[in-house]
């Protein structure tokens, strides 16, 4: 009886609340735990630190969300970020390009890598996993080639990007949030987004509905490459240097964030905003564990457990959503 009432009242909440409530709860839980165990956790600096750290991975996670929604995957984001960053560094330091020109070069690299991924996947109908695994190696090789395996220190010329701030928020953070918002709107409110969800649900049915899924899929990989190169600009600016080893393991981190956010690896279901929550959870976890000075082994153990716990939580959230939807539907169906 009691249970029913609770169910009912959960069901009365607007959908977007239950969409994000699980995430928000998880995040809050982490904050409380670290707030209690680290000394200076609840300070402005902690939050500024996190805000400073998340923009690049957030932007990559947005791209990854799109890729996962069409039931693809992109393992090359880390390497592509390194390559794009390397080209940015080279353009600025070796060729003395002005910053805008160098950024254009960098973005072009991301777009090209994304396009290469997309074209091969679409042309030969190959699994994205393996093609982007190939690109992971290729782009990393390219980054080594371009930088001669050296870290390129850039300094001033790129630091303007991180130094700019509006209302106390750094430019990269604002860009990242803008991309999240735009991404969510594209996904849920545009024809393009609708097609992507449809492709992720049943590509063959989309094709037989007279829509060619190939340019759309290609576009998604290009978009992911493009977003990755924006992340590369921000990453490079933050570290004032271009490192050919940058973004090592970024792909798994980004996928973890996106999946923690409830996007399905099977395609057809996902939310950009939730991915952002996923990124925040991972960032808070990292910062918190570092602040309490956890051992490497502890860090790994806890990170692993949080990842698994988050998806288990998501499982239950889905159940609630489902029952909620059912209540809604039957309420509508009655009259």
């Amino acid at each position, binding site marked *: 009886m009691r249970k029913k009432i609770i169910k009912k009242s959960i069901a009365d909440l607007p959908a977007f609340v239950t969409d994000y409530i699980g995430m928000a709860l998880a995040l809050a839980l982490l904050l409380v735990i670290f707030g209690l165990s680290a000394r200076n956790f609840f300070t402005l600096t902690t939050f500024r630190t996190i805000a400073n750290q998340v923009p690049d991975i957030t932007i990559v996670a947005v791209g990854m969300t799109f890729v996962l929604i069409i039931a693809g995957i992109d393992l090359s984001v880390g390497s592509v970020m390194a390559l794009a960053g390397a080209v940015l560094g080279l353009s600025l330091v070796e060729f003395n390009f002005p910053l805008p020109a160098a950024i254009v070069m960098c973005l072009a690299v991301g777009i090209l890598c994304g396009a290469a991924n997309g074209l091969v996947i679409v042309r030969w109908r190959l699994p994205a996993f393996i093609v982007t695994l190939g690109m992971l190696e290729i782009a990393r090789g390219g980054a080594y080639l371009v930088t001669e395996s050296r870290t390129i220190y850039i300094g001033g010329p790129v630091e303007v990007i991180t130094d700019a701030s509006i209302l106390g928020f750094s430019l990269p953070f604002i860009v990242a949030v803008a991309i999240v918002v735009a991404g969510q709107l594209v996904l849920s409110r545009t024809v393009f987004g609708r097609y992507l969800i449809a492709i992720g*649900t049943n590509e063959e049915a*989309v094709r*037989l*509905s*007279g829509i060619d899924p190939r340019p759309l899929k290609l576009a998604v990989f290009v978009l992911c490459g493009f977003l990755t190169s924006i992340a590369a600009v921000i990453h490079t600016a933050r570290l004032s240097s271009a490192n050919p080893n940058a973004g090592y393991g970024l792909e798994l981190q980004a996928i973890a964030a996106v999946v923690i956010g409830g996007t399905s690896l099977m395609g057809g279901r996902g939310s950009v905003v939730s991915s952002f929550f996923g990124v925040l959870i991972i960032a808070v976890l990292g910062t918190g564990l570092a602040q309490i000075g956890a051992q490497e082994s502890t860090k790994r153990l806890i990170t692993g457990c949080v990842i698994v716990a988050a998806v288990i939580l998501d499982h239950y959230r889905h159940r609630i959503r489902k029952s909620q*939807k*059912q209540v809604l539907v039957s309420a509508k*169906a009655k009259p």
Partner: protein
Amino acid sequence: MKSATSGTVFRACDIDKSFPGVQALSAVDFDLRAGEVHALVGENGAGKSTLMSIIAGVQKPDSGQMCLYEQQYEPNGRADAEAHGIRMVMQELHLISNLSVAENIFIEKLPNRFGIIDYDKLNGAARKIMKQVGLGDVDPDVPVRLLGVGQQQMVEIAAGLSRRCRILVLDEPTASLTDREIELLFTQIRKLKAEGVGIIYISHRIEEVTRIADRVTVLRDGKVISTNPTSELSVSDIILMMVGRDLEHEQLRHGSKAGQVALRVVGLTRGRKVRDVSFEVRRGEILGVVGLMGSGRTETMRAVFGADRPDSGKIFLYGAGEPVEIRMPRDAVRNGIALVTEDRKEQGLLSALAVRVNISLTRLRDVSRFGWMDIAEEQSVADRYIAALGIRCSSNEQTVGELSGGNQQKVVIAKWLYRDCDVLIFDEPTRGIDVGAKFEIYHMLAELAEKGKAVIVVSSDTKELMAVCDRIMVMSAGRVAATFGRNEWSQEKIMSAAFSEYVGV
């Protein structure tokens, strides 16, 4: 028909089952005797499949009791039901495409020694059972994915017949079978009957029901309307009870005002399935296509639509002198050709998404502005088609996967009606659709033709084609064997044409 000899083996009392927004079954009583065929008929969404899946342990009822041989029966999962001797051939195909035919048939009990499969025994047993259902010419070693839908359905049936059971449920087994295979199935059913097996038989083809069933139960809106011996009922009685009104059962169309040639196909060839096929359809005309299973009808239509690349052949549209190049479905749709595919689950629907999303998919441009979705407009479009086709769903937000088979089919049709193409190809549009809806669909086809569309209907049900078509093209072994006009055809002529190419080989 011989009436049942022994007593009741199964009884269900007062079964209730509701899904969100739908009372699928309410206070349903149902019983089955040994050695009888008990048919279950009703409109789409009447609750037939739901009742059967409860009996077969796939779903649990909300309330009510079931008794099997006077014993309380509460199956806990399908395996449990099978342990009780109840087997079911489900309406939707549930085959494992990468396994061989034989493996699919004997999936739950592969003959083995210490876990190692005895393939000789397996294939031998499969061959025997396949011959009984008319799959004798298929190699049991072949993966199921290489078979056509019709053949796959026969594999499902074969799997259902493969083990001894006391109750056999057949949920629309004949939906994509042609007459030849249906005869074979009936032979098997009679054999089982003689062995005392109780059979529950669901079909939308009422003539079939009157031929094979001993008793008929009519379901409407989840309630049992009546249960009678077949001998006491006529076809029109049954339809009346199902639909709640009388359907005129006469010819739908009287002469056509065929106009310009809308689609002309010349020398279409694709592998061994489609060989040098040429035909044309005019505006305002309905062309029926019949043939035996695997005769190449589906392949032909897929090739026209660009779903598969033909090896050769030309397609001319709307009387143009130049052939159009159709490399993919997108080109076909842009040229005003639509194809309602045979396999709705795999090829027609986004099962996990809402009805609204499925209907608008073909024409998103018209429910959006500058790439921005106009959800309100989309909903009103969806509601329009839901009303027009009588799709039973709780709202346009309901997930398509939750609809009954027939309603899913209507969603596919709605999607193409919304696209408003000039040449419409329907591949088995009435597969799994109830008489009422079938009638509506044929009305709709006629209406489309009236409006000047060119319509092609592929169907395994020759009688319904004869009711609605202006011309009927018969395919045999990938070739066009004959084309008949309205006054030329007869069931016999069509059948002999359908067999013609096979006899020669």
